């Protein structure tokens, strides 16, 4: 039995009564991660990568060991393919600004799914406008499904980029990325995958998936805020221009030019977030010790429990598939007559933390014909009492807003 102890998470010691069900927004942090950040700043801190003394070497070592851990975690071929960023949003912007600006021409097409998070949508919208390219949308079924046939139909000889999340932050549905990557490559299209909701919850192997780029955030997988990752295939990253310019990313600078550092440092301008990387390394180790088998088992069982209870209530409508196994911990819903922000406030009164709004996916909400929704999202450290608290409050929502039942 793998080791798991909710007491690893100090926030639940401080607030034993809250049911934290906003894990898709950000997760809580285990003591092991907090200790790693603390250790970095207490014992290992100097400016990494440039220093010529022992402490700076130690800082560099912490930072590069974290990169090696990320490489192994997603099975990339080389550490040169792992670029540290602030978060998935910055990673996706990096691809749009660097690869996109270099490769997209007037009349080209960029295909984006209708359910993308704004961070895998807006950078492409801006790029298309700037280049005179066409932004096209892949629409899903009512339950949030995308199929190979739908993708094949949407691709044209001019489609240069296809942007898609591996797991949607609204539907929770897992998209068949490996199949999509094969279809894209046959068409000469680069596939950019947003892994913000998948990497923390299922094993992700970039080689097996065959994606060209994968972005994810540390803070959604137990690590501190401010550290994120861009994986890119080395041959693509090699040819791309830098995203930001400044210190730490140059080889040689003269008054009229510069040569840039090798991968991945070319994309990491300025002093890096070594403390954050140390935290991410500890988070990867924590998940590794628990094991994705145990993690998924816990999350799927809780998702099933939550969905079964919620679906049984009249006036509650779950967005997406009826099958809890399609949700990966994400349950987005509406309650008749109750505005999602009112619902979230009442949940809060009962000590249940959920998200309300459009979850940074306004085009999807418009497409589905709902103004906004409520989202409960589970992590492995949640337990049945969290779900129970949630469903008990859900049952009383309409009554507390003055409706009959």
């Amino acid at each position, binding site marked *: 039995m793998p080791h798991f102890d909710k007491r690893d998470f100090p926030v639940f010691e401080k607030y034993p009564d809250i049911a934290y069900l906003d894990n898709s927004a950000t997760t809580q942090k285990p003591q092991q991660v907090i200790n790693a950040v603390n250790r970095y700043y207490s014992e290992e801190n100097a400016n990494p990568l440039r220093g010529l003394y022992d402490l700076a070497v130690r800082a560099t070592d912490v930072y590069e060991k974290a990169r090696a851990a990320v490489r192994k975690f997603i099975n990339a071929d080389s550490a040169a393919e792992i670029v540290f960023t602030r978060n998935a949003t910055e990673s996706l912007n990096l691809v749009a600004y660097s690869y996109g600006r270099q490769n997209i021409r007037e009349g080209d097409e960029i295909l984006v799914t209708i359910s993308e998070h704004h961070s895998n949508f807006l950078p492409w919208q801006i790029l298309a406008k700037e280049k005179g390219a066409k932004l096209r949308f892949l629409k899903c079924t009512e339950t949030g499904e995308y199929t190979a046939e739908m993708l094949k139909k949407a691709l044209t000889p001019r489609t240069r980029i296809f942007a898609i999340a591996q797991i949607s932050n609204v539907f929770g549905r897992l998209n068949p990325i490996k199949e999509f990557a094969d279809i894209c490559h046959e068409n000469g299209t680069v596939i950019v995958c947003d892994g913000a909701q998948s990497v923390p919850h299922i094993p992700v192997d970039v080689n097996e998936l065959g994606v060209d780029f994968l972005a994810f955030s540390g803070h959604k997988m137990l690590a501190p805020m401010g550290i994120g990752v861009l994986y890119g295939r080395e041959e693509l990253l090699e040819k791309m221009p830098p995203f930001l310019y400044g210190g730490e990313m140059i080889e040689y600078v003269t008054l009229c030019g510069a040569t840039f550092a090798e991968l991945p440092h070319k994309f990491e301008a300025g002093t890096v977030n070594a403390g954050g990387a140390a935290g991410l390394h500890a988070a990867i180790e924590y998940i590794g010790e628990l094991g994705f088998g145990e993690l998924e088992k816990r999350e799927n069982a809780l998702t099933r429990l939550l969905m079964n209870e919620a679906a049984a209530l009249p006036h509650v409508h779950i967005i997406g598939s009826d099958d809890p196994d399609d949700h990966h911990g994400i349950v987005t819903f509406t309650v008749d007559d109750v505005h999602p*922000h009112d619902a979230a*406030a*009442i949940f809060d*009164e009962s000590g249940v933390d959920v998200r309300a709004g459009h979850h940074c996916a306004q085009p999807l909400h418009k497409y589905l014909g709902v103004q906004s929704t409520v989202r409960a999202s589970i992590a492995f450290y949640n337990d049945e009492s969290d779900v129970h608290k949630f469903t008990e409050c859900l049952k009383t929502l309409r009554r*507390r*807003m*003055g409706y009959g039942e």
Partner: protein
Amino acid sequence: MANNFYNEILTDHNLHPMHKHELSVCTCSRDGINPSCGDEIVLNLNIKNGIISDGSFTGNGCAVSQASADIMLDLVIGKSVDEAKRLHGLFMKMITDECSEEELEELDEAAALKDIAHMPARVKCAVLGWRTINEML
């Protein structure tokens, strides 16, 4: 955990608003939008000789925005423009958590929204009607 601001006053004004309708005679109308909840209202006023003789609103949004607009109209109809401006000032003062007991009494039912001050994300809902009317006066 927040204080319970979904009290009877609020839910009653949300479910049974007195002033949520079109206005046949009106001297000015204005849209108010709160993008965070997606609340939208259109506020209509009939102002004669510096007095708000009638008012109404239409729109949709969260309970806080709709109830607050209805409560506001209860307060300002029949009052002078200057008095309505003063009440707007009091409401804004209450929302930033620095109202005296006497001032709260003047706000009557609008004081039921006092605890919104502790929920920064919802302040925009509560002030939507007030912000809109202030732009009209």
